């Protein structure tokens, strides 16, 4: 493959690339959105009960261990889901369970107990303590988990091409079948650039989101 093969592929297929990229982004965005909506509250809830935390975290770990191709294959066989977006979304949300729950749980659990004790002793209610203390102080760990989730979801989303998602993974899949190197490289490159780009952006956000008092030292 020469560079001109590659650029001509890009030129000829710009429309498809746009469509696939859009699909890819939509899927990632939806999956991350749903995951946040479900797993953050679950993670917070688990901080209340060590027993349930152990159980749910073990389950999340187990799910996380299932290889993604197997996961998609299994979900497709469930009539309610079948081929397509529903299965893809469910798989991605299930994968996000481990990093999100774990980071929310660890983040909140790592907050100095004395700070919570003092706050409670001053008459701060449970909600206030959650919003004003637990979340901001747990944020460095929580956000790190979020960052991993986003990058991971971007990668696994590509594999959803095998169950009918028309996204950037498709370039790799078809490229492999047809031995079309420019096609393969295009898919691989764009996905990687997106993942690295997202990670970089989130890294910058992370720096701003950590409360100032935690970054400062004497």
């Amino acid at each position: 493959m020469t560079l001109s093969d590659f650029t001509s592929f890009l030129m000829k297929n710009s429309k498809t690339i746009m469509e696939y990229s859009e699909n890819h982004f939509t899927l990632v965005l939806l999956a991350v959105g749903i995951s946040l909506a479900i797993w953050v509250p679950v993670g917070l809830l688990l901080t209340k009960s060590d027993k349930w935390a152990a159980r749910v975290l073990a389950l999340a770990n187990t799910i996380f261990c299932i290889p993604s191709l197997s996961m998609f294959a299994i979900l497709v066989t469930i009539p309610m889901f079948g081929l397509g977006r529903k299965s893809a979304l469910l798989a991605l949300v299930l994968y996000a369970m481990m990093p999100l729950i774990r980071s929310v749980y660890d983040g909140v659990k790592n907050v100095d107990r004395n700070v919570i004790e003092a706050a409670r002793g001053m008459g701060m209610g449970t909600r206030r303590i959650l919003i004003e203390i637990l979340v901001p102080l747990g944020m460095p760990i929580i956000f790190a988990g979020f960052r991993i989730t986003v990058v991971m979801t971007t990668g696994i989303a590509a594999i959803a091409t095998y169950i009918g998602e028309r996204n950037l993974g498709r370039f790799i899949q078809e490229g492999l079948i047809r031995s079309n190197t420019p096609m393969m490289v295009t898919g691989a490159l764009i996905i990687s650039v997106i993942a690295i780009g997202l990670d970089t952006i989130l890294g910058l956000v992370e720096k701003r989101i950590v409360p100032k008092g935690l970054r400062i030292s004497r």
Partner: protein
Amino acid sequence: MIELEQITKQYPGQAMPAVDKLFLSIPKGEICVLVGPSGCGKSTILRMINRMIEPTSGIVKINGEDVTRTDPDQLRMGIGYVIQQIGLLPHRTIAENIAIVPRLYKWPKEKIRKRVDELIVMMGLDLEKTRGKYPAQLSGGQMQRVGVARAMAVDPPIMLMDEPFGAVDPIARTHLQDELLRLQKEIKKTIVFVTHDINEAIKMGDRIAIFDAGKLVQFGTPEEILTNPINEFVEDFIGRDRVVKKLNLYLAEDAMQPIGCVVKGNELHTAAQKMKDAGAEVAFLLNEEGKACGQITVSDTEEFGRDIEGLRKRVLRTEKAFVQTTTPFPDALSLLLEYDTDYLGILKGEELCGMLSFKGIRKHVYRKEGE
């Protein structure tokens, strides 16, 4: 006033109750120290007052009202709370930390700002430098000052302090203790103070409650407890040196005796005669400005006779052998030993107003013991 009526706290899975049928009434405006070995239930008792822990049975009353009638958060907002580990919010500035309870009360911003500034100054911290700092930028002693300021923010009538100075270095601890005592003279709060250190209890307490294994063993003023320990446990707990500890309760002015004789700098040669006339064993030398600058004993005058300059040198050796009216007995005793004298001059500010002797100290402590 805080009243604990038949309070019991039984933790599940423990054979002995942590607190067992406790009656205790803590008078208004006093510092009541709960003291005892670890695990004696003192912290549990403290935490039942603001409902951080709920008793298994019994009633806690504040000013006659059962605390369970108030919403716990509301109750705690009205009670200052200081813990050993301080628990400042690390992501909030010092000013924001102090403002927590005023914010819960929804005070207007301007009022909060004023109060925060007032408290920072009151705690002896540099206002401009401290206000915008984060807890991580302060020393342990400074952090606990902020902890105390935060607890006093809305001027609550009751303060609960759980080993508040236990984690700071000894010098800072002494400072903090002294300052709390000084403040308490003005603010007159009802303070419940938990410590495991009997010396701190004696120093801080208007009243001391000694606990062992969840039971109140003795309750009384430091003087009562040091004078009449109720049983062997209390005796052991306060230590063999209880009479020496008692010295801490008294100040130089308590055993002050009138001055028998003073001698001006230029009439040193008349000292022997003057002392003889006054029947005094000791005289104090005043310099040109009328400030006391040393002491002369009868034996000094005999030793030096007509050698006035020798006598002057001897007298000036005791130039610093003076205490203030508020100096506690142990410091005075230390000076007596250091200068190897029988007497110390007592100053009020710069002015000589009396003297203190070994004999006087002994008599004073003995008198109290006999009461």
